[in-house]
């Protein structure tokens, strides 16, 4: 059995699955039940400064995007940070940590961008025995209007400054949680590292409006006829999160900086993908909010089984393994030539590949009167669209032309040695091949 124990910047947990800072981690009752259900750790719902807590709206705070049969694909929320008093949260955290010493308990914090505010809260968090803190520079709605959350996360200088304060006034690991609502995710990550952060976590939610009520003519969720943008999360955001994680993982300026992966993780496979791109732990919110705490069972069992199959004994062997294969477009091998191949035995003759290729791609699929669909090699550019729209898994395959074969589309013989754009004759800035 693969060993799932996790050591993330010195924070230990029996498995890499943590609940992200959000409603599932809002209070003692939830967190105890989450630990009983098997979660390796939690990032407690974001704490605010001492004093009267923030208030939430009293109308709907979520909106959803559905797939068939109302499967939740994306969730949007306008919830703020915890609306319970700081003291209550701290007491509960201390009690839970004492009872579950083997689990990771991390405090998420968001206070105004003033040194005094951070200096005030950090010792109190430390007293709870929490294993570390996560700085919420991500929340894109409500709190950002008050100069916190993503309003900080969008200014690298602020990130660096606040991170530095935290490292100064707190002696346990500091994780900086990044907002995806920014043009280049590497900038805030570099700022976090420069400020001394032990790790970054990402992504927080993405600015979003779920839908528009066409009768009320108002965005949804709608509160008394008005709506506000919220933060998007769930399966739909995973590709965005993966890309951002990979950019930080391979940026020389942040290379090796530990990453806690967040964004749409719903199954063990999602988690494994984040880990392959460099995440030492993963955090989950929407999947737990959709299906309850029990999903962690599937995640743990699946990850462990897959690692056994692959012969990976520990998570260290998985984390970052795919990073060397993430590259720039200009380095992709242009001498790798493939053609679509339709397996006639598997084909159910729906003709979707035909419609897609004929109407919107390269007119590279022929259709006979008896509905046999065949690829015309002389036209196929190997774009993959036919495979993407084919309802039958593995029915269409991409077959590589061996070196020495002639590509009927270009009339050129396929070369064995790779060549990319940097040396391509059409590239005005190309360097000479040799």
């Amino acid at each position, binding site marked *: 059995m693969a060993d799932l124990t996790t050591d993330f910047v010195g924070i230990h947990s029996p498995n890499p699955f943590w609940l992200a800072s959000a409603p599932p981690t809002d209070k003692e009752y939830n967190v105890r039940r989450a630990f009983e259900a098997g979660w390796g750790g939690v990032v407690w719902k974001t704490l605010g400064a001492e004093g009267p807590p923030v208030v939430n709206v009293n109308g709907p705070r979520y909106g959803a995007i559905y797939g*068939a*049969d*109302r499967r939740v694909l994306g969730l949007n929320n306008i919830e703020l940070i915890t609306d319970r008093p700081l003291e209550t949260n701290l007491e509960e955290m201390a009690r839970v940590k004492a009872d579950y010493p083997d689990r990771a308990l991390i405090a998420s914090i968001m206070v105004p961008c003033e040194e005094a505010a951070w200096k005030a809260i950090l010792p109190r968090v430390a007293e709870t025995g929490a294993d570390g803190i996560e700085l919420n520079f991500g929340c894109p709605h409500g709190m950002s209007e008050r100069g916190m959350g993503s309003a900080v996360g969008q200014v690298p200088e602020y990130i660096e400054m606040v991170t530095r304060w935290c490292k100064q006034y707190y002696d346990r690991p500091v994780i900086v949680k990044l907002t995806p609502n920014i043009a280049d995710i590497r900038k805030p990550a570099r700022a976090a590292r420069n400020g001394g952060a032990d790790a970054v976590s990402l992504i927080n939610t993405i600015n979003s409006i779920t839908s528009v009520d066409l009768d009320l003519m108002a965005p949804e969720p709608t509160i008394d006829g008005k709506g506000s943008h919220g933060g998007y999360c769930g399966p739909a955001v995973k590709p965005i999160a993966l890309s951002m994680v990979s950019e930080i993982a391979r940026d020389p300026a942040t290379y090796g900086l530990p990453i806690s992966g967040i964004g749409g993780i719903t199954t063990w496979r999602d988690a494994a993908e984040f880990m392959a791109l460099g995440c030492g732990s993963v955090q989950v919110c929407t999947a737990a909010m959709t299906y309850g705490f029990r999903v962690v069972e599937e995640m743990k069992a699946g990850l462990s089984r897959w690692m056994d199959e692959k012969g990976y004994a520990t998570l260290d062997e998985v984390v970052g393994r795919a990073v060397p294969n993430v590259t720039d477009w200009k380095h992709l091998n242009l001498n790798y030539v493939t053609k679509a191949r339709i397996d006639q035995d598997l084909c*159910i*003759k*729906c*003709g*979707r590949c*035909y*419609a897609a290729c004929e109407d919107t791609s390269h007119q590279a699929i022929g*259709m006979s009167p008896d*509905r046999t669909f065949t690829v015309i090699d002389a036209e196929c550019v190997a774009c993959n669209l036919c495979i993407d729209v084919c*309802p*039958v898994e593995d029915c269409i395959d991409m077959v590589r032309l061996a070196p020495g074969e002639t590509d009927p589309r270009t009339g050129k013989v396929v070369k064995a040695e790779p060549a990319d754009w940097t040396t391509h004759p059409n590239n005005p800035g190309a360097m000479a091949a040799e």
Partner: protein
Amino acid sequence: MTETMRLDGIRAGRLGPEDLTRNFSDLHPRFSDHEALVAADRCYFCHDAPCVTACPTDIDIPLFIRQIATGMEDAAARTIFQQNILGGMCARVCPTETLCEEVCVRQVAEGKPVEIGRLQRFATDSMMAAGEHPFTRAPETGRRVAIVGAGPAGLSCAHRLAMLGHSVTIYDARAKPGGLNEYGIAEYKTPGGFAQAEVDWLLKIGGITVETGRTIGAGLALEALRNDHDAVFLGIGLGGVGALGLEGEALGGADNAVDFIAALRQQDDLTQLPIGRNVVVIGGGMTAVDAAVQSKLLGAENVTIAYRRARDRMPASRWEQDLAASHGVRLVFGVVPHALHGDDRLREVELAYVGPDMAPTGETFRLPADQLFRAIGQKLVAVEGIALEGGKIAVTGAGRTSVEGVWAGGDCAAGGQDLTVTAVAEGRDAAMDIHASLTDGRV
């Protein structure tokens, strides 16, 4: 099993009103909104979809399903009605398992087709329940067309002609319009008076007069219709039923299945409809299955369908055979009726085994029978002066008969399967041809 089910003879009230209501309720109720979305999502929106080709009325099935999937069932209904104005009835009665759903790529791939029939019902019901008619009539052309028969063929033809601005009069022998929709289709496929509601809804197009109790050949002459109208369409179905030609057929209890079903469909209080304890149905088509299943639902204890050929030759689809079997109807193959026994009334049916060539093997056996239904096919009652082909009205092109200015379609016309949807298609196509001829091709 109630006490009354064990009473011999043909009698009413074998089951109480509650059982009967349950038994004759909707076989496939309308999808709920969510069910429809899930079912619609299974459609792959195939290119040049096989289901469209398989539908005799060429409904753009992928399009209407996509319209359901995007929450526009009224737009979906319009897509259906454009091709098939009786799309509501067809959604209920079409043997989809041998039409659109049989060739659905998901049927071929997984044995589970997109539920096209039920999705069609979902769409058409919503528009019809709202009482909305999707089409408006073109300006009056002054042309007059007579239609004989208010079954699916006649109604479809009438609607299309009226929509194009012609004035239509439908003559029908029966008391109510609808043809077999009203008098033939199984009750559980179209409960709740749907057939009449559909006729009323269809007539909203305007320009159509219905005259019931008017029979061609009995008071109404084809010649007179031709003289008074610019064109005539015959959609008279198959009114005749063959006899078995057996000894004992005159005994009480040997009935015609179509008449039994018609009586059932017109009976408001099914506790008043008599049925035998032991029923034998002779035949192998839809009528045989419907008669047998409805006998069971009325409370007959033992019901047997006796068909002369092997199962794979049975005209009733496998789905219908299974429907019968699931209601406890026994299916016997390779047998023909040999004799009817009984003194005062029918007591037993004697069946004889036959080979594939229909030659008797010499072996016979008897089944207890209080009632026997003949479902051995309907026949055309010929109209004088019209040429026939294989016992039906000979037609060329879109239903042109041997007589100038007279078209025919539906069951009475040669070619095509005897199905509601085929009748609708033929009525519609004849209407377009009539329209072309009345307007000298200036469609």
